[in-house]
């Protein structure tokens, strides 16, 4: 029984990572496509020899767009790099705010599509944690994803982090209407959720609409 549960957890986690990486890749592909199109456009314009009054302004605009995509791609890869390195060791010392940033970077696109804004309310001098960062990301991600899917348009989703009594507290605070559609669809089954939280040594509780995740700073 326990064996099967463990297996489900592992498969879930791998699934999660696969999805994250796929998500990253899709976004990047989009940016690169834009770069290509922009460059192509410029090329076409030059070849056609069109001389317009706005030149070189037009070109500069295209170049600016390309530079934007480069920056976005670069940022995304920075997050990818950080996210990937979380998996190097099961146990490491990390800054929870940074791990949350990586998740946000992943979810921004989906959130934007639904006109939901994700806000960070991070404690600035939050204490570093000694735990399993990848596992923590795995857990928090599913709550975030759930909220994003259920929230109404133009809602806000606040992620708040703070240190309190030897624990790191992550609060997921939805601000808006929660549609109750498809309760269990695609989200982490309760047993696995429970297992993960126990592995991290913490607990999850629901305070009204806030999901509160408490993880001890040191997982002894």
């Amino acid at each position, binding site marked *: 029984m326990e064996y099967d549960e463990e297996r489900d957890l592992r498969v879930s986690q791998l699934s999660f990572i696969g999805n994250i990486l796929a998500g990253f890749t899709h976004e990047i592909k989009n940016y690169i496509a834009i770069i290509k199109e922009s460059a192509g456009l410029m090329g076409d314009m030059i070849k056609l020899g069109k001389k317009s009054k706005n030149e070189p302004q037009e070109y500069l605009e295209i170049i600016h767009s390309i530079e934007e995509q*480069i920056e976005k791609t*670069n940022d995304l*890869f*920075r997050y990818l*790099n950080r996210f990937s*390195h979380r998996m190097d060791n099961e146990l490491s010392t990390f800054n929870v705010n940074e791990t949350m940033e990586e998740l946000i970077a992943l979810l921004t696109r989906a959130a934007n599509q639904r006109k939901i804004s994700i806000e960070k309310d991070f404690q600035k001098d939050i204490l570093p944690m000694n735990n399993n960062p990848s596992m923590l990301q795995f857990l928090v991600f599913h709550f975030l994803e759930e909220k994003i899917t259920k929230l109404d348009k133009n809602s806000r989703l606040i992620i708040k982090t703070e240190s309190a009594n030897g624990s790191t507290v992550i609060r997921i605070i939805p601000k808006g209407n929660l549609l109750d559609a498809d309760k269990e669809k695609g989200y982490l089954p309760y047993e696995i959720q429970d297992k993960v939280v126990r592995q991290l040594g913490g607990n999850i509780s629901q305070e009204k609409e806030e999901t509160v995740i408490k993880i001890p700073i040191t997982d002894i």
Partner: protein
Amino acid sequence: MAFTKVLLIDDEVEFASALAERLQLRNYDAKAVYNALEALNSIYSDKPDVVVLDLKIPGMDGLEILKTIKQFDPTIEVIILTGHGAVESVKEGLTSGAFEYIMKPVDIGELIAKIEQAKKRRDNK
């Protein structure tokens, strides 16, 4: 006043040549080389003020090149190029005598600033 001599050492030809051109447009005497042999030859013959060096070059350990430069002429300042997740090599580079580091893709403004700082430092020696 002579232009600042900058030597770019990176095996990515497209990158280094474009960057060299951009520096030249900004009145730097910039040259790009793409392997260790050319790099060392250039150092000995051209005697650049500032070197911008990518540590991961096939054929010779970038760190070795850095040390060779510093041995040859310690007043030449070296700025190392790095990518994401290459923190270790940056540390190694800095302890081996590099002056600064900059990440790829390179922000031209940031690079210029660092080159100027390097030049100043060299002039003060």
